[in-house]
């Protein structure tokens, strides 16, 4: 007898798609042809792909079972540092899925799609207002895509001034996308070491900034969860040498309504709508990474953008623009969700969201700092970075702690990032977690810290309560099996 699918509780086994089904089934209705078959030359015809044939019920059950092996924000707390895993409101999904929106073809003439253009226009304005910057393009499809747009704007600006620059300053706490995006524009990243207090040191910038350097990329709050207090002075130094300041807005969730990025001296900034503005991450995407700039750089923004003359919304292209970043308007459906979020929150609750995000992180920091080693004991913003320093004596690593957290029903924090903190554990609770939830999480971490003392093996062998145990990543990389 073949084993049934049941494993434990409600977790079912489920084979790969092509391990099930039978030729001749179908999972989708296809209209019968009511017109004569047309001729097609044999030499153009292929055989069609070798796909399994499945019924609709089989497909639905397949993906339902897969979903049960997954953990999302709706399942539980997801304190993944620098990723802002906050609650994703359901009403936003409904509006993005409204048929008038989903059926809109992107190449319709402006007069036929005033509604979809209006959303772009209003969202451009909202994001300008929230950041303090002057103009916005919504086209980039993700944060890294927004960074690339930003670097292309840097390049266009300097070329327009008559001289291409070759280097860019980059703190060692930067996300890996920063140097990768800069490299795509031919910039050589010059690394800046973070100072003793975990923030940038003005003197180092003064020393490194020169007229070959296009500018600086700063994440603020930085990936240690600390506010770059010297940002204005740094911006002045960079501007004096003719450079520009790029703000990586990945951590915007800490500062809405509190910090004015333009006042900080930032010239170009990208936002992650899938972080700060609550759109779901979808297991990797789609996101959206709008890019915001000061007046002087507006003409370089990706095109087209949307303008409004008081009666009509229209798409405009500036001849100085860096051009298109995306086939159409970026991940439009994601924009609609963020738009709904901002309308729901307004200025009042966006600011509160940032305040509560910082409150939650500060609370977790205070409650855990006697149990896990705290990398920088300073006032934190929306996240706090710990490490496994205290656990090393028991041969328990950050990875072990992360895996054990899963057994208790939490998604682990971001681990081993930022690189400047060895064995980093970066916790970002976000504002949508309640005090009770935080207290339970804190208790669980304390319990794991105890287990690390008394039973390190337990941690090495975790997680133990999932469909699979710890997976062999070495085998996967040595003999890649990427296709079934």
């Amino acid at each position, binding site marked *: 007898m073949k084993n049934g699918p049941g494993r434990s509780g409600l977790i079912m086994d489920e084979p790969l798609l092509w391990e099930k089904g039978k030729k001749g089934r179908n999972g989708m209705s296809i209209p019968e042809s009511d017109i*004569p*078959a047309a001729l097609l030359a044999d030499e153009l015809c*292929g055989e069609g792909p070798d*796909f399994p044939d499945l019924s609709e019920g089989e497909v639905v059950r397949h993906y339902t079972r897969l979903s049960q092996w997954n953990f999302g924000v709706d399942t539980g707390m997801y304190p993944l540092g620098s990723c802002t895993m906050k609650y994703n409101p359901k009403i936003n999904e409904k509006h993005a899925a409204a048929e008038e929106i989903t059926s809109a073809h992107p190449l319709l003439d402006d007069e036929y799609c005033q509604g979809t253009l209006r959303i772009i226009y209003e969202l451009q304005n909202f994001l300008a207002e929230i950041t303090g910057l002057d103009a916005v393009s919504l086209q980039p499809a993700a944060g890294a895509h927004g960074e690339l747009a930003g670097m292309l704007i840097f390049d266009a600006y300097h070329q327009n001034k008559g001289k291409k620059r070759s280097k860019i300053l980059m703190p060692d706490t930067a996300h890996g996308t920063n140097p990768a995006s800069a490299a795509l524009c031919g910039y050589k990243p010059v690394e800046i070491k973070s100072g003793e207090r975990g923030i940038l040191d003005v003197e180092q910038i003064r020393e490194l900034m020169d007229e070959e350097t296009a500018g600086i990329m700063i994440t603020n709050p930085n990936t240690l969860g600390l506010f770059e207090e010297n940002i204005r002075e740094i911006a002045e130094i960079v501007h004096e040498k003719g450079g520009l300041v790029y703000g990586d807005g990945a951590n915007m969730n800490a500062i809405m309504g509190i910090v004015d990025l333009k006042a900080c001296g930032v010239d170009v900034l990208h936002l992650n709508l899938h972080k700060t503005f609550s759109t779901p991450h979808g*297991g990797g995407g789609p996101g959206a990474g709008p890019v915001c700039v000061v007046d002087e750089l507006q003409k370089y923004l990706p095109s087209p953008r949307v303008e409004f003359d008081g009666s009509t919304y229209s798409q405009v292209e500036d001849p100085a623009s860096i051009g298109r970043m995306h086939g159409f308007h970026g991940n439009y459906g994601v924009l609609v969700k963020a738009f709904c979020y901002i309308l729901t*929150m307004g200025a009042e609750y966006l600011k509160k969201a940032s305040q509560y995000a910082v409150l939650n992180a500060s609370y977790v920091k205070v409650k855990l700092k006697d149990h896990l080693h705290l990398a920088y004991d300073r006032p934190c913003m929306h996240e706090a970075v710990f490490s496994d320093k205290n656990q090393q004596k028991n041969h328990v690593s950050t990875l072990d702690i992360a895996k054990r957290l899963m057994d208790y029903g939490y998604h682990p924090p971001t681990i081993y990032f930022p690189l400047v903190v060895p064995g980093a554990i970066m916790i970002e609770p976000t504002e949508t977690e309640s005090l009770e939830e935080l207290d339970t999480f804190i208790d669980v971490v304390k319990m794991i810290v105890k287990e690390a003392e008394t039973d390190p093996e337990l941690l090495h062998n975790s997680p133990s309560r999932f*469909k699979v145990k710890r997976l062999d990543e070495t085998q996967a990389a040595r003999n890649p099996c990427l296709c079934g």
Partner: protein
Amino acid sequence: MRYLPHTDEDIRTMFDAIGVKDFEELFITVPESCRYDKEMALPLPKTEWALNKYMAEIRTMMKVTPEHTVLIGAGRYQHNIPSSIPSIMGRSELLTAYTPYQPEMAQGTLQGLFEYQTLTARLLGVDVANASMYDGASALAEALLMGLRIGKRKKRVAMSAAIHPHFREVVRTYFHPIEFEIIELPFLEDGRTDFSSLVDENGLAAVALQSPNFFGVVEEMEAAAEAIHQAGALFVAGFSEPLAFGLLKNPGEAGADIVCGEGQSFGMPESFGGPGLGMFGCKQKYVRNLPGRLVGETTDLDGNRGYVLTLATREQHIRRGKATSNICSNQGICTLTAAMYMASLGGTGLRKLARLNYDRSEYLKQGLEEAGASVCFSSPTFNEFVVEFKDDFRPVQKRLMEQKIVAGLDLAKYYPGFDNRYLFCVTETASKEILDTVISEVKK
């Protein structure tokens, strides 16, 4: 506020624990000069019901409604989507998860991506497909950059002028700051790309074409492969309508080295241009040069099958400035949506649907020709084709719009000299009745 759980009492408890007296003190590290010194000028917060009203009002501003049949494609296609897909893909375990960095907690996403990679590789005829890129346009730019990485010291790429104009614009945006040259290959009178200038081009890393191309024309892929390989370059095969490969030969089979294109047709609506996904694959030997996420099969401590993100050393979070791309995500849920669509159709269904699309578009093509329009390119087409009208077509277009039919894309702004030429797209959503209406209005 329903998303924020904090009560006044909670806040006081937390302030006490932290040792601050108010929010001002919590933000003590933000200097005065960096502060947002006024209220953000945004609309007042809306209840769910007020938001519904606001959005409903915006929707009424759309003159093209869901009742319209859209006979425009050009990179975004109107296809039927079974209800099973949005219903299951809306499950929050899939939708509200992050990138699967912790594989034990994300086997659903990971197995789903592995299945997507496999079905995509089979569809495109390549050895390996990644877990998707942002869209077809950025995927083309990434493919050409990949060609340059493989070509090491080579400094030039070429692309056909019959590639989607927006896709070519994105390539130019990506290439602008760097010292690589882009050559544009013209197209012939039959609508296919002209390779005659390609012979012995020195230092050419990659040549891209799209098939079916922007005009719907099916390129001669084997001949293209031969010409491109003879010029010592890699063959990058693009597409914007993957449904074509249910009926036509796939690009890998024809000799393409890298295949990339837009996958929106597989279960995603037009949604004003996004999200969709960039499908991307290549021959096995180039796998370490691939941009983007990859999922691989492995085993767990007990020897059970499982899936992980792999070959991450190509990527930005490890290789930083030397990564194969700056991309840090994929299109996630869109990728699973495309896989679910492919699984729902199955091999048999995909072929039947592709055939139906082909037949319907041929029907309109012939009908328009009989009605007096001339078909601009003599080569075979799939789903899309270009016709030129003798008289101004705009009045006809207007009459059809009144009958809820969006007929044809004016090509004048994309190609000089294409006055009165229109690109039509016909899919399974256009009934015979609709097509007959278009034909008879043209005849009038």
